[in-house]
């Protein structure tokens, strides 16, 4: 029961963070203060569900994972992998967003790459969460 609750909180926070990541991806061509700030906020917002996912992972590994179909289990491992990549890309993108013109162009690529990884991870998460 507790695991299920945290799993849902983790998923909802990740969804909010992914929406937030899109803001600097779209607005970074313009050099605006709030674009830079939202890049930082997006990285922090993504860090919360990532940390939460790491926190509930042992319970998942002990109680949920053994009962999953091997195909679903493999899907979840891919989701972890993508979440780690998304965190690295978005974190680096948030730093790059604070730089000059070239750095902001780089930041868009990093943030978008991170968003893509996070989006696929989210889809896999939904798939695993809807397990039979």
């Amino acid at each position: 029961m507790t695991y299920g609750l945290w799993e849902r909180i983790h998923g909802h926070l990740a969804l909010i963070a992914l929406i937030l990541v899109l803001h600097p991806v779209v607005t970074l061509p313009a050099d605006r203060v709030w674009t830079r700030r939202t890049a930082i906020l997006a990285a922090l917002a993504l860090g919360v569900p990532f940390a939460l996912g790491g926190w509930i992972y042992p319970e998942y590994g002990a109680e949920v994972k053994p009962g999953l179909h091997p195909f679903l289990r493999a899907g979840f491992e891919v989701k972890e992998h993508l979440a780690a990549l998304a965190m690295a890309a978005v974190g680096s993108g948030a730093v790059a967003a604070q730089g000059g013109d070239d750095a902001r162009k780089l930041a868009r690529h990093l943030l978008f790459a991170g968003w893509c990884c996070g989006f696929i991870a989210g889809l896999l998460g939904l798939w695993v969460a809807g397990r039979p």
Partner: protein
Amino acid sequence: MTDRSVAAAYAAALVFVASYAVQRGVGWWLAVDAGVMASTHTAFYWRCALAALHGGIAALLVGFGARDPSALVRARWAVWAVVLPAIGSLAVFQ
């Protein structure tokens, strides 16, 4: 934020992604995942920690040693050159 700091963060991210993907590939190659990942959570944490360590070392090297950090900042193509193969490796290393 200077180009040197941005280049250091960029290098850290690229190395983190590459390190994580390689570790997953090695785990698959050694057939560690099949047994270990099914029964424990240690591998995920270790992978992240080791990839973060590699990324940190890369950031230090670039931050203190790069002669032209702005060249790395302009190399935006490297994002996709590293991230896309890392995503693609997921389909293989199962």
